[in-house]
Every structure is written in structure tokens, then in C-alpha cells.
């Protein structure tokens, strides 16, 4: 394994009596795109804030870029780029000024910043809007500007907390494309998401968090292989209209949800055909690849997005 950029052991964060992060162990290597996947309140953001050297851990050990983020917070933060969950751009400033001022916060000179800002505006596709106030931007543009802002110091690690929450599908795809480009340039990405597709699109490796703990770890493909079958057949039928006896032996494992039944199987077409034979076709049958959603359901017994 190449050099570790994050090493956490027994990392814990408490707010009063509430345990937000409960003794998690995480190792992240340089150049990786690493994800924290889990529902709201699972402790992802608290973990990110500890790695970002703004929130002191309550217990456990944490090293970021080989440093102690509490004692060497200034030095750690100088090498990070942080994209927070909420939009906290400076609304009194223009697009360009937001980048300039942020660069100045890192102690970069205006002369250094000028070409860098031009480049970042291009990267974020905001060159035309450079002199506009940020409040006139769309949600997707604001996200792209926030990401550009996080890159102004050429960070070694980019921390992204729910990078595409609240964006429309097109804006999400543009953003994913930008993040993949960033990764190709050699940056390490650490992101949180509660979207399965996002985790599958962006992460080399991820941990699934639930109720302040890590419940699984691996690559998206590994996790699917370990905790779900290759394919899933969804039967869209209400729980109370279903005769469970009809489902006997159609799949390796069956999960009954209030509005649908999930049949985990190695052979989606075979299972779908079997269900049709038993007269369940009119209910609506969809065969698909297993996803992290299925992993999460398997691990916690709950769906990820209620």
C-alpha cells in the first residue's frame, strides 16, 4: 500500500451524551478516492470535520498527512481542500473574488493567484460569470465554485461532504466528471454521500457507516459481492397483496419491503422468468444489477433514503 494520508484508530466524537462517531478505524492511501457511505446522522460529517482539522476528536488517534490535526491544525489545513455540505460562499463577493480571498486565506500572493483563478474558473465552467455575485448562480454552479475554491491551494487531499446533494441529475453528472478529472490529476478524494450511485461512480474504496459505526468496508464491487448477489429482481407489489408461498425457491434470498419484494439471485433473467411462470408478472418485474443500496439494506435491515 502506498503512503497513508489518513490513519484513524478508535476515532470517536461525542457531543455531550451523544456519540456521533464511535471508535472507528480507517486507513486511506494516497491517490485513493475514498467514500463514507451512510444515511443522514450516521457520523460521516463529524468524521470529515475531524479529518479536516477543525473538530478535535473526543478519543482515539488520528493522523492526517502524517500530522496530528489538533496540534498541527494550521499545517494540516494548508494542504487540504474542503468542500462543505452547505453553501458558505461569501455572498458579498463576486465569483472571482471568492476565489481570490480564499487563496489569500492560504497566504498565497495575488500574483500567484491570478493565473490559478483563471484556470479554476475554466475548470468550474464559470469564466463567463466571474464578475457576478454568487447569489445569482444556480445550485450546480455554486457547488462547482465551492469545489474550485477548495482547489485554490492545490490541496493534496480534497474533502467533499455530500458533494451533489440537492442537485439535479445533469448537474450531478457534470460534477462527477470534474471530480474524476481531479482524481486523474493525482489528488486524493475523501467524500461522504448517502447516494449509492455516487459512491459507485466515484469511490475506489468505501466504508459503510450506520449509527456512528463502520459496518462494512471494501470496494463497491467487493461489497456487492460479499453482501448481495450479482443481480436483483424487483417485484413491485404491496406487502399485503402478496402470497409469500409463490416466492418459494425463486431466489437465493428474499427481502420483503412495504412496496416491493427484492429477490437476490445469480441469474436475474431466470428468476424473472420463474416469477412470470407463477403468475406474478402483472405486478411489474424489474431485473437489475445489485447495488450498494442492496448492501446497505442487507447490513442494516433498512433502506438508505427513506
Amino acid at each position, binding site marked *: 500500500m502506498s503512503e497513508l494520508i489518513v490513519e484513524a484508530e478508535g476515532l470517536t466524537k461525542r457531543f455531550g451524551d451523544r456519540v456521533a462517531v464511535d471508535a472507528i478505524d480507517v486507513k486511506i492511501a494516497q491517490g485513493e478516492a475514498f467514500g463514507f457511505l451512510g444515511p443522514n446522522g450516521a457520523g460521516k460529517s463529524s468524521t470529515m470535520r475531524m479529518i479536516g482539522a477543525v473538530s478535535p476528536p473526543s478519543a482515539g488517534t488520528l493522523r492526517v498527512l502524517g500530522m496530528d490535526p489538533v496540534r498541527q491544525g494550521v499545517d494540516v489545513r494548508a494542504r487540504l481542500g474542503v468542500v462543505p455540505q452547505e453553501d458558505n460562499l461569501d455572498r458579498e463577493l463576486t465569483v472571482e473574488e471568492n476565489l481570490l480571498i480564499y487563496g489569500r486565506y492560504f*497566504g498565497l500572493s495575488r500574483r500567484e493567484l491570478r493565473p490559478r483563478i483563471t484556470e479554476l474558473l475554466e475548470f468550474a465552467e464559470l469564466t463567463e460569470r466571474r464578475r457576478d455575485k454568487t447569489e445569482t448562480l444556480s445550485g450546480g454552479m455554486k457547488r462547482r465554485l465551492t469545489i474550485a475554491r477548495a482547489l485554490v491551494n492545490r490541496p493534496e487531499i480534497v474533502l467533499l461532504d455530500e458533494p451533489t446533494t440537492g442537485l439535479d441529475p445533469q448537474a450531478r453528472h457534470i460534477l462527477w466528471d470534474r471530480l474524476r478529472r481531479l482524481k486523474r490529476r493525482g489528488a486524493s478524494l475523501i467524500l461522504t454521500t448517502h447516494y449509492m450511485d455516487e459512491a459507485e461512480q466515484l469511490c475506489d474504496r468505501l466504508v459503510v457507516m450506520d449509527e456512528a459505526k463502520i459496518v462494512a468496508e471494501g470496494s463497491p464491487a467487493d461489497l456487492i459481492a460479499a453482501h448481495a448477489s450479482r443481480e436483483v429482481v424487483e417485484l413491485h407489489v404491496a406487502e399485503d397483496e402478496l402470497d409469500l408461498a409463490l416466492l418459494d425457491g425463486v431466489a437465493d434470498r428474499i427481502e420483503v419491503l412495504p412496496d416491493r419484494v427484492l429477490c437476490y439471485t445469480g441469474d436475474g433473467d431466470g428468476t424473472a422468468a420463474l416469477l412470470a411462470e407463477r403468475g406474478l408478472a402483472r405486478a411489474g418485474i424489474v431485473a437489475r444489477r445489485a447495488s450498494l443500496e442492496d448492501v446497505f439494506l442487507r447490513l442494516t435491515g433498512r433502506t438508505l433514503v427513506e
Partner: protein
Amino acid sequence: MTPRTSSETSTRDRAAPLSAGFPAVRVLEARLLAARRTLRSAVTSALLNPLLYLLAMGLGIGAVADPSAAADLPGGSYLAFLAPGLLVASAMQLAASESLWPLMVGLEWNRTYHAVVATPLRPVDLVLGNLAFVLVRAALAGMLIALVIVVLGAAPIGGALAAVGVAVLVAGAFAAPIAAFTAKVRSHPAMTALMRFGIVPLFLFSGTFFPIENLPAPLQAVAPVSPLWHGAELARLAALGAPTAWHPGAHTGILVGLLVGGAVLAERPIRAVLCR
């Protein structure tokens, strides 16, 4: 030292700007950049408000006041008495308004301070940078008022400028503790109450518009509680050479104490919000 080393030194100096050793300067810079946008309205109100007060009260009330009584006032006229008081009272108001709502914008409403502490800057840099911004604003606004004062003949130019120095100190003496208050309470009603029941009474009853000797004795006795009273005393000393109630060093010491104490007190609640 060889010429070569000295040229290396100067290159390094250029690469490491002033703000490297004192990062709060970067916060000040951001505030100034944003303030540029509202410069015209800020200048207009900084000029217009004191001009209106000085004309309406200084000349208007001064004309109906008993001239022989006014002659006993420091400066020899009501206008001359009022001008330094107004200078420090404006500084207080500016400091209060800068330390209430703008702080909430950064801490909660737009959460811009959360973005700041994700960089190498620390909460203490935010406290000091914002304080520096209030001092700069107070100095600039004070100069404009001093201009009006000099034009109206209410004080000599040197005295008016010295009084601006006092106004800057008063601004700091209010800005720092009020920033601590805002970060601690983070409540709109509490902030409005501070303005209504703190700042407005101080504005009226701190010896800015009339000598506190005109107040009933019990109220006179509480005047030293008002930082603005200390500022008004010092401002009249600076502008007119008028004698102060206490030793000037004592007045100054209280204002400096509030500035330093307030800045120290403000850091912890701001850190508690940003670095929890």
C-alpha cells in the same frame, strides 16, 4: 553580508507577505474587499449623519440654549461641546452594528466563517481581523466627521484629528466585547435588546449631548459605567484641551481594557461554534 544573500532575503520577503506572520490581516483584507462595494453609501452616511446632528443640535439647540451657560461649556459653545461627543458616539454605533449582525452572518446565517476556519486561519484570526476592520472603518468614518467639525469651526484641525484617535479606541472598546456577546448569545432578540437597551441609552446619557452634571445625582454616579462617557471625556481633551473628570490615563486604561478583554473573551465562543 554579501550582496547575494541580501537579494535572496528580499525575494523571500516578497514571497512571504506581511500577513504570513499576522494572518488576521487576511481577514481584514477580505472585509475591506467586500466593503468596497458599499463604499459610496458608507461615505454618504458617515458624512451626512454627523452633519445633520451638528447642524440641527449644535447650531439649532445651541441657538436656543442660554448663551451664558454655553460659554461655560468646554469649547465655549454648544457646537464645540457636542462635536467631540458625537464623534465618539458615532464610533460606538458603528462598532456595535459591525459586531452584531455581520458576526451572525459569518457564524450562522451564511456560515462564511466555517469556510475560513477550514483554511490555515484560526478563530483568533477571525476575531482580530474583524476587530481590525472595525478600527479601520472607525478611523475612516472619524476622519469624515472630523472634516465636518473643522469646516463648521467646532474644533481646530489638530484637535479634531486627535479626537479621531480616541474614536478609534472607543470603537475597539465596544466592538470586542459586543463580538463576544454576539458569539455567546447568537439570538436575534438578545442582539436587538442590546441595541435598544444598551447602545441607545449610552448614546443619549454618556455626556455626549449634554454634560452629565445636568443629570440627577444617582445617574451621574453611574456615568463611569458607560465606556462612552470615558470616550467623550477623552475626546474633549483631545479636541478642545478640556479637563477630564478622571486622569486621562484612567479613561484610556478602561477603554484599552475593554478592547483587550473583549477580544480575549470573544475567541472562546467563536471557536465553540466553529470548531465543535
